């Protein structure tokens, strides 16, 4: 094929298209996917940290308005994560789907492919995986085989759900933001039907699947953390390597910065769009099955708990960097777990955590704009 396809290190040496940059961008992506310069590192770490602190201050004001001392709430949150015996283990468990989906989002957003369909892909993944491991005649298979089959089916289903949005975008020009969202709603309907009728346990009174204990993921670090957390930990360096050292990661960034350079090298940007949606979808599908077999005993109607939405925040706060996604995912999970006990103790509204994390993301967006203006002014 063309020069872009011949084997050459994508990073380290300066790739030829780079001379046609600097890209015409709004400051946000510029700050996010810039190569590591001292200033870049400073702004990419400083902005989210300051934003998180500012959001905690806003949250503190809201707590104070509610008539509770914010400092004692935050102290209780820290105690919930760091001093309770299961705090760490629960945090890792909640962080697992956030990181798996978040890394997929991060890859997509680097290519400026704005999918928000992680929730639907997560659900169809859980349904497909559960259908496979609870099907008749697979019960005698060894646990390892069942686990691999289930996770594989989930990844394929999620990838198809994500890929569908890619096909609609490439062939018909359908907006990815909207199509992935519609597919999420449709995926939720699919789950509702599956547990009520499609793969329902006929002996169960409630609408849920047969038990998936035969394919349960092994757990470690105490009772709660399961193998899925290891997947998330392994995914981070792999994604990092893909972005920094692999042609695919390079093409993703090229698509995000300047799609023209891809076309100039006769490499179809549609293929990159599709591939990134397939990968993000597969990861979200994996997350769905990992959560089902790692945490739950059956797949039920309540499977949609919103990890697919929260992971959007995690990817953005994590600066579209795999390591950042891991840190942001752990941070958000810690806040959630710590707040759970604090909330009961102080009788606070349960939605306060989502409000605080939502404020982080608005402050990050705003902070980036301020940082970009600052640079312009100098």
């Amino acid at each position: 094929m063309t020069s872009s396809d011949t084997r050459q290190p994508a990073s380290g040496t300066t790739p030829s298209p780079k001379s046609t940059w600097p890209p015409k961008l709004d400051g946000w992506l510029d700050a996010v996917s810039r190569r590591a310069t001292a200033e870049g590192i400073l702004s990419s770490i400083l902005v989210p940290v300051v934003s998180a602190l500012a959001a905690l201050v806003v949250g503190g004001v809201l707590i104070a308005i509610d008539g509770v001392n914010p400092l004692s709430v935050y102290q209780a949150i820290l105690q919930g994560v760091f001093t309770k015996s299961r705090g760490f283990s629960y945090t890792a468990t909640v962080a697992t789907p956030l990181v798996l989906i978040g890394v997929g989002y991060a890859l997509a957003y680097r290519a400026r492919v704005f999918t928000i369909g992680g929730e639907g892909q997560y659900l169809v993944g859980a349904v497909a995986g559960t259908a496979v491991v609870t099907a008749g005649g697979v019960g005698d298979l060894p646990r390892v085989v069942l686990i691999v089959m289930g996770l594989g089916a989930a990844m394929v289903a999620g990838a198809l759900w994500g890929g569908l949005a890619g096909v609609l975008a490439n062939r018909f020009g359908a907006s990815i933001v909207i199509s992935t969202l519609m597919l999420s709603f449709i995926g939720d309907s699919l789950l509702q039907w599956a547990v009520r009728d499609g793969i329902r346990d006929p002996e169960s009174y409630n609408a849920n699947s047969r038990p998936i204990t035969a394919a349960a993921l092994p757990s470690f670090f105490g009772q709660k953390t399961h193998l899925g957390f290891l997947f998330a930990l392994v995914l981070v360096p792999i994604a990092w390597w893909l972005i920094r050292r692999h042609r695919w990661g390079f093409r993703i960034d090229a698509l995000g910065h300047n799609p023209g350079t891809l076309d100039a090298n006769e490499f179809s940007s549609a293929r990159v769009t599709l591939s990134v949606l397939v990968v993000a979808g597969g990861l979200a599908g994996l997350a769905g099955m990992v959560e089902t077999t790692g945490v739950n005993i059956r797949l039920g109607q309540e499977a949609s708990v919103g990890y697919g939405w929260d992971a959007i925040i995690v990817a953005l706060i994590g600066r579209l960097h795999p390591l950042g996604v891991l840190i942001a995912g752990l941070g958000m999970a810690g806040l959630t777990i710590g707040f759970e006990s604090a909330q009961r103790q102080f009788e606070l509204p349960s939605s306060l955590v989502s409000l605080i994390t939502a404020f982080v993301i608005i402050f990050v967006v705003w902070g980036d704009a301020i940082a970009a203006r600052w640079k312009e002014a100098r």
Partner: protein
Amino acid sequence: MDTLFSIATVEAGIRLGLPVALAALGAIINERSGVLNLGLEGMMLSGALGGYIVNDATGSPWIGLLAGLLVGASTGGVFAGLVVTFRTSQVVTGIAFTIVAIAATTYLFQLRWDIGELPPRVERLGMWPLVALTLVCVAAVWFLFRRTTLGLTISAVGESPESADALGYNVVLIRWMATIAGGALAGLGGAVLVNGPLGLFIEEVTAGRGWVALALVVFAGWRPVPAVAGAFLFGLCDAAQLRLQGTATEVPYEVFLALPYVVTLIALVVRARRSHTPAALGDPYVRGAA
């Protein structure tokens, strides 16, 4: 199935279509000026909560609608501040804006009514006043873009902000105004949903209707009358879904649950290529940068 194609279903379809129609009209004004408003769902939801609380407090659904309009306009102002003045990414800001609105409305709602406590049903408006209100809005938006200099100016700003600027128009001001107007109509749509067909507020009551409105705008080619027709189609699917949920049919009722979104997806696919997208949609305007 004979109950499906009844007057009642059509009426419910109109009622459920009105909020989407209003939000779509808001999105048209917004996007014609070149500002892509992915925060529309959040603005609709904010208007819905504002309209509900004020209706509950005053007992007047009309004041509730006014409140929804004002809340929507102010969220539009915040959004304009971020994307027009601070020039943040419109896509990211829009998504973030909706996430914040979902969290904030849920929080405020939980503060006001504890979990388990039944939030009161508010007085509802009948269908015809709301139909009249929506028709007035459609006519106004149609008139704005077809018959007024202001409408042409908004379109010019969305097509070529540089030229509009060179002719002496204030691009930033016009985009601010368009975004506030878009937010106001979205907020009004949310308030109509709560003070009209539903009569109550629940968490995430808009259930993606703001996103549906955005898809309809593409389907309608940024024209008000086809957008309203699309909204009516969505409302019909929504009404059919609600009607069929309770009844036992051959087809699983989840199919109808998904139907409005499938139809929206199809609409998005059918019309996407033939659309007349404003040329500068999504681009922040920096004076002298081009």
